[in-house]
């Protein structure tokens, strides 16, 4: 059977703008797998939001992210593209980050050129490190990976700070340093997205944040431009957030779930999603 790293590499290199839905935990990853997605994006913002109830401002540690990755890797058979933020420090920290996350089960690592600790790519007030430091991190990541197919997705946040041409130049230098894929974060128009795809030799990643800065072109258009994958990192989180809010507000207000019953998954769907039949089968087998 092909390794998850090789599968993810093939998916990205088809340049079909494969949609990667984001998960911050095993449950969301299970939903993604059941629906038939080919890979999971492990979202750093999602982990910060769902685990800490905190914003995506670099509060989660490598240890915590790795624990989430390991749990998700155990819950699903899909390859995981993991948000590794800045590598949690400098190029020396990147070495440990790659070791820890590869061992936890990542098939690809997304690393970015923000100053540590980072901020969400669609927030104001973010800052980038000098290009040399980012190139050192990419080289550190490439040298450290044990599996040569572990995808190194180099992200630049320079668009919002230095402008699009500078961001594209940075991505070009990252490719020379060994990045398999680049990801110019937060372009603000269809024309910018097209320019990114035209200018860079390796497959590109687009990140569609609902309510964020990048327009949602739709998968077909992203595929025409040659994007490798399109991240919908927090679609599931935002859906769950609204639904949980509406249901709990109604319960508080009305003292029952009657008016919001259609928001709730049934008991059977819930057990199906967490693979209870599989565990039942294991129980029979080993009894």
């Amino acid at each position, binding site marked *: 059977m092909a390794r998850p790293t090789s599968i993810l590499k093939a998916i990205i290199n088809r340049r079909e703008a494969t949609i990667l839905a984001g998960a911050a935990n095993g449950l969301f990853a299970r939903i993604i797998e059941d629906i038939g997605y080919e890979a999971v994006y492990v979202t750093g913002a999602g982990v910060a939001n769902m685990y800490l109830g905190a914003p995506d401002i670099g*509060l989660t540690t490598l240890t915590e992210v790795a624990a989430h990755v390991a749990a998700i890797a155990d819950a699903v058979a899909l390859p995981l593209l993991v948000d590794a933020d800045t590598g949690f*420090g400098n190029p*020396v920290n990147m070495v440990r980050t790659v070791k820890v996350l590869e061992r936890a089960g990542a098939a690809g690592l997304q690393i970015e050129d923000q100053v540590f600790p980072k901020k969400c790519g669609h927030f104001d007030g973010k800052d980038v490190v000098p290009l040399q430091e980012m190139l050192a991190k990419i080289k550190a990541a490439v040298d450290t990976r044990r599996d040569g197919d572990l995808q190194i997705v180099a992200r630049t946040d320079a668009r919002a700070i230095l402008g699009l041409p500078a961001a594209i130049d940075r991505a070009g230098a990252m490719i020379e340093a060994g990045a398999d894929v680049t990801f110019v974060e937060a372009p603000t128009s269809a024309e910018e997205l097209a320019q990114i795809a035209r200018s860079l030799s390796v497959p590109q990643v687009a990140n569609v944040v609902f309510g964020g800065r990048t327009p949602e072109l739709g998968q077909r258009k992203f595929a025409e431009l040659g994007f490798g994958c399109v991240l919908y990192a927090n679609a599931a989180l935002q859906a769950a957030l609204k639904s949980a809010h509406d249901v709990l507000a109604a319960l508080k207000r009305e003292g029952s779930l009657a008016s919001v019953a259609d928001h709730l998954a049934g008991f059977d769907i819930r057990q199906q999603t967490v693979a209870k039949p599989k565990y039942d089968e294991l129980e029979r087998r080993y009894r």
Partner: protein
Amino acid sequence: MKPTTRLRQLIADPEILVAPGAYDGITARLIEQAGFAALYMTGAGTSASFGLPDYGLLTMTEMVGNAARITAAAGSLPLIADGDTGYGTELNVVRMVQEHERAGTAGIHIEDQVSPKRCGHLDGKELVSTQEFLAKIRAAVATRRDPDFVIIARTDARSVAGFDESIRRANAALKAGADVAFVESPQTLEEVRMVPQRVDGLCLLNIVWGGKTPQVDLREAQLMGYSIAILPGLLLKAVYGACDAALAELKETHRHPRPLFDGNVRDGFRRFGADQWDALRSRFRDPPAPAAE
């Protein structure tokens, strides 16, 4: 008494508080059994126990996890922990203080190196601005839930920006609410002497073997005006030496060397609470005797 309150008492006492460095449950227990009143969790030793140098490679989660192990092992002693830079900005400091308080730590030191940091006695350190350092101290002070939790401000400015700058930063941190100042790596005996004289508050002395600071007798440090002395590497270095010697002797003699600790298996376990655990073995087996009328 809470460990934080006890730590404050010990610091206020005219006698210098000596806190040897622990990095795991073994070293914590041994410090307790040797009769010291407090202990220190060394970040360098914690890193070494992961097989790593003190280059800021460990995460806050790993450091606090180790602090929790140490407080569980030596519960009667207050723990001063190495909080490094707070592992990021003042926002990361907020999270670190919350986590350390929950781990049972009685006090932490926070330093003004760029995050991720380097050991204070290595070359190539970089500093954050005083403004950023003070933001971290204020964040720590505002976050502690227990007002007795001790915030120690450490400045690494001596080897980067000079002695005067290190004193200026220490005093600014005390003004911003730090309880104790820790001027890292003064380079001469005269500088060691000057720190308590020029700092407007309580001072901590870091005694490192083979570092940048000359060796000082603890009684002398007390006379100089220091309130706390930490010896982070005392046991770690003893362990290197003892292990190297035992391993070399095994290779040479092909026999188990006579250990420095020459007890049997049972004696070894007794150092780690075997008697107390044995008492618990039988204690819950039988229903409690009915209370006398």
